[in-house]
């Protein structure tokens, strides 16, 4: 079976994100970018399926600017077989991404699409679910364990109450949670080999999708700074403050 893994280029998780002075977004100039960590887990899972003989081919897809090819190269260095790059500068929203992925899925015919449950830049947590709806495929979100069966997947999901195990028929969409696996570090020999693996380039128009955003960002601001704490003398004062100042009880 083929496994398709979409990977997003986002601000590196170690970078302290700064809001632009004009409040239109966050500062991206000269900021280190990397693969979305949840997508890295998705790639790792797909490669493990291949290594276990459960998958024949792993395809990494990225939608974004020219530099998104670097993100695809990272996936190829980890062990994906080939890449697909949809060149698009500017903002893309989950629905447009899901539509483009649908077109790629119809072209490539994967049995499973593994996505990160969300990207750490916009934290949308929507693309996998939208893709599932558009394709009419089963979905298993927030996976912490995936077992590949015959025409089905057994997926353990991380839900609020604990762990939920479900079976889904393939073809299926899976989104990854943090504990699914620990992604490997690419080796230098594999980074060098990745240079020779093919990346197919295309545009949103090639896929028949108009990526124009449907949402307008009004403003982006930093979270409020945490105010310093105070020491209370006794429980009575604490209760009084919670009631009258914080107004939480």
């Amino acid at each position, binding site marked *: 079976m083929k496994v398709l893994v979409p990977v997003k280029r986002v601000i590196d998780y170690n970078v302290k994100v700064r809001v632009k002075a004009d409040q239109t977004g966050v500062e991206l100039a000269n900021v280190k970018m*990397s693969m979305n960590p949840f997508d890295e887990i998705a790639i790792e899972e797909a490669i493990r399926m291949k290594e276990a003989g459960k998958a024949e081919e792993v395809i990494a897809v990225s939608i974004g600017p020219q530099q998104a090819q*670097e993100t695809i190269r*990272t996936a190829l260095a980890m062990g994906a077989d080939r890449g697909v790059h949809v060149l698009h500068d500017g903002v893309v929203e989950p629905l447009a991404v899901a539509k483009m992925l649908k077109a790629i899925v119809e072209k490539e015919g994967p049995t499973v699409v593994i996505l990160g449950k969300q990207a750490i830049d916009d934290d949308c947590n929507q693309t996998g679910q939208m893709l599932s709806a558009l394709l009419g495929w089963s979905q298993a979100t927030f996976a912490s364990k995936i077992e590949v069966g015959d025409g089905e997947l057994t997926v353990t999901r991380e839900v609020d109450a604990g762990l939920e195990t479900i079976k889904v028929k393939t073809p299926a969409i899976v989104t990854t949670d943090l504990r699914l696996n620990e992604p*490997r*570090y*690419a080796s*230098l020999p594999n*980074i*060098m080999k990745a*240079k020779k693996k093919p990346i197919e380039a295309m545009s949103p128009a090639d896929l028949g999708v108009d990526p124009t955003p449907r949402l307008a960002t009004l403003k982006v601001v930093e979270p409020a700074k945490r105010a310093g704490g105070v020491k209370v003398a006794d429980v009575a004062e604490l209760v009084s403050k919670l009631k009258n100042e914080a107004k939480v009880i």
Partner: protein
Amino acid sequence: MALDPETLGQFIDTVRRYVRERLIPLEEQISRDDAIPEEIPAEMAEMGLYGLSIPEEYGGIGLTMAEEVLIGAELGHTAPAFRSLIGTNVGIGSQGIVIDGTEEQKREYLPRLASGELVGSFCLTEPDSGSDAASLKTSARRDGNGYVLNGTKRYITNSTRAGVFTVMARTDLDNKGAGGISAFLVDAKSDGIALGRPYKKMGQQGTHVADVIFEDVKVPADALIGGVEGQGFKTAMKVLDRGRLHLASVCVGMADRLIDESLAFATERKQFDTVLAEFQLIQAMLADSRTEQYAADTMVRDAAAKYDAGENTAMVAACAKYYASEMAGRVADRAVQIHGGAGYISDYAVERFYRDVRLFRIYEGTSQIQQIVIARNMLRTWKEAH
């Protein structure tokens, strides 16, 4: 082979991330246990780190010196014991073969050294001889088609992990100088080899050094590096030339880490209601450390570029190793000073690094040996020109 910038950048990023996410969290543990978790050498082998300096045709990555020093600096950001795992295979344990080995020796050893399957270790120092070639006592006596080795080698890094030793031994007992010394590749499992107990050291816990004792160890004739007697000391010097640049780069990385530790502490810790970093005397220490670290970094990169261009780098490699290791010592000292009392407490990384960096001024040629190498090269050049 020189890598394209994108590939090199991706590799540096990967090593940096590995150091930050995997190795730095283990620093306290390896310092306490004096042992590195078993899976770490395997992970480093998987990444290709054992084969950094071994040519591609022998299964390595064949980084240029300019590239290798960038990786050295990344690995310098954590406890030196991790770098030491690969240190001998990248440097003194493999380069004798790379530089002066016969084709058969290269094919026999390099692929396994590059993959990390085999660990190489370098045996030059003896109880009565370090940089002083004339005093080298280990002997290699002709015996039929081969040689018999006798002698004791002291403070041998990675000897407890080694599969093959590069051993400097005197083949010409009448020649007391460097010309009487030859280099041999000796299987660590040979009969007659015994290891001493690993020494207790001031720092760099996790790396083990021990004596290696050779008692009537028989080696075949083709164990002689390059197949020519009397070349051993020259081989050793060429190996050390490259090793000095590598070590200098590790010092540059280590100093950068120490500066980061200093900045983190100085911007948090308050005295007199003010964070330390606001005090000008603290700032002076930070500025001195950064300036010297930058100078060393620049020296290392320049000397590495000269090495790749095929220039004679005996002097500049010594300059870089001398300056970078002394610099790391001063930066570590200031880092402890900036930390104040905390810097003397083992809970803080700088206390450990302060002890770790001390070795950089000593091994692979002490600072004093570097000074002599530098001065001799200066005088030789002067005399040749006048």
